[in-house]
């Protein structure tokens, strides 16, 4: 079901469609660390995006800081100084609760006011907690609440299904 190459092809096709539909003009692609960056690197190459890939680390924008604290070695985000008026393609590996994307949007808007933001994810799963949803997906899947999807890489990307009960 979760064959990485098939999903990447599907996501690429979806992105090509949305670039035309939404008239994304010289878009800026941004990957969310860590898995999102791996997917974004592939899409950035396939779609021949001009600007270098932006990297986003949302650790300082998470809404669970008071529970989990701050991790050292948060890598600084690398975004162009000028985000004002740009069309942005934001990429993550898995869309789950939506909280990561909420944090990512807050961070992006702290760098400037983009024209449009399009969200592309490799896998959308059930469990949304806030009213956001992706524009492009590689696939949609339904999982149990205790199941998690994990992407490993970056050398050879692979999708793993984890059972949280087993981990705990």
């Amino acid at each position, binding site marked *: 079901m979760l064959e990485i190459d098939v999903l990447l092809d599907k996501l690429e096709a979806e992105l090509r469609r949305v670039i035309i539909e939404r008239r994304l003009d010289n878009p800026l692609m941004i990957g969310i660390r860590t898995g999102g960056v791996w997917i974004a690197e592939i899409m950035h190459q396939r779609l021949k995006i001009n600007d270098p890939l932006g990297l986003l680390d949302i650790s300082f924008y998470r809404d669970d800081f008071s529970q989990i604290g701050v991790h050292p070695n948060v890598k600084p985000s690398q975004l162009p100084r000028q985000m004002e008026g740009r069309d942005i393609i934001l990429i993550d590996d898995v869309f789950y609760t939506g909280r990561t994307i909420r944090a990512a949007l807050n961070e992006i808007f702290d760098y*400037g006011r983009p024209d449009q933001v399009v969200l592309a994810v490799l896998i959308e799963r059930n469990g949304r907690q806030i009213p956001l949803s992706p524009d492009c997906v590689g696939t949609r899947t339904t999982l149990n609440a205790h199941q998690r999807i994990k992407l490993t890489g970056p050398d050879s990307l692979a999708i793993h299904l984890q059972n949280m009960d087993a981990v705990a």
Partner: protein
Amino acid sequence: MSDNLQLNPEGKLKHFLTIEGLNKSLLQEILDTAESFIGINDQQIKKVPLLRGKTIVNLFFENSTRTRTTFELAAKRLSADVLSMSISTSSTSKGESLLDTIRNLEAMFVDMFVVRHAISGAAHFIAQHTAPHISVINAGDGQHAHPTQAMLDMFTIRQIKKDFSRLRVAIIGDILHSRVARSEIQALNMLGVAEVRVIAPKTLLPAHVESLGVTVSHNLTEGLADIDVIIMLRLQKERMSSALLPSESEYFKCFGLTEDTLKNAKPDAIVMHPGPINRGVEIDSKVADGPQSVILKQVSNGIAIRMAIMAMAMQKQGSL
């Protein structure tokens, strides 16, 4: 005053009072966390929401410009609400005791105190007596410690020199009265530098200074040999009650860092100073403003390091 009052039961930072009693991995964690905060300076909105809704009070019982403003900026960049109080405008001048001041501020639902005080141990005293949910950061207490200054200097050194293990670091000047020197020596040794050397006239060194883990020189020219990092200290005129020195000009002649004396250190040595600098007393302007000086870099780094320490002290305190 070695205390693990600073750490919670899980070994995480709760108060930041002195370098003593901390460990290498915690110091590295502070440096790594600060590294992450550096990037925020590139943002159009130089702010992250980590401490939104938290209230931080800067309690400055002693004057300061750099330290107070960088603490204030650091707190604001973490989105905390900050209040800066200085002694001259507060009610302690009306006779209120230190603990009463603290109790009143606690009643205003404060989450953190940043304390500077002329008495050694003041921040420690507040940490012992304040409500359990409050964190205390020492912004300089008497002649005891100034740990955030030490950490921002460690950060600056690591930024430029990368690896501590081969470094020879000279601390020059009024070691006796300097809380900065004490904290620097502890941090440098904890991070494992090859040598910490203090260079000063005998009258400006504490008794048994070698026991702090330093080598000693009383001659600037000789003492600078093989040195990678030079930390100049301010001649603390306001703390000098007795005649420890013949005169300022005499001091400059023997221990002032000039372009000429600087040549005795390694050619790529960096020059640091915690500020405020006394030009022509401990350091010549040509050196302070010269290519080897990283004095203003230290100031910029002060914001990131204070953000890191505040954020770490405010994260969830486990079982507390």
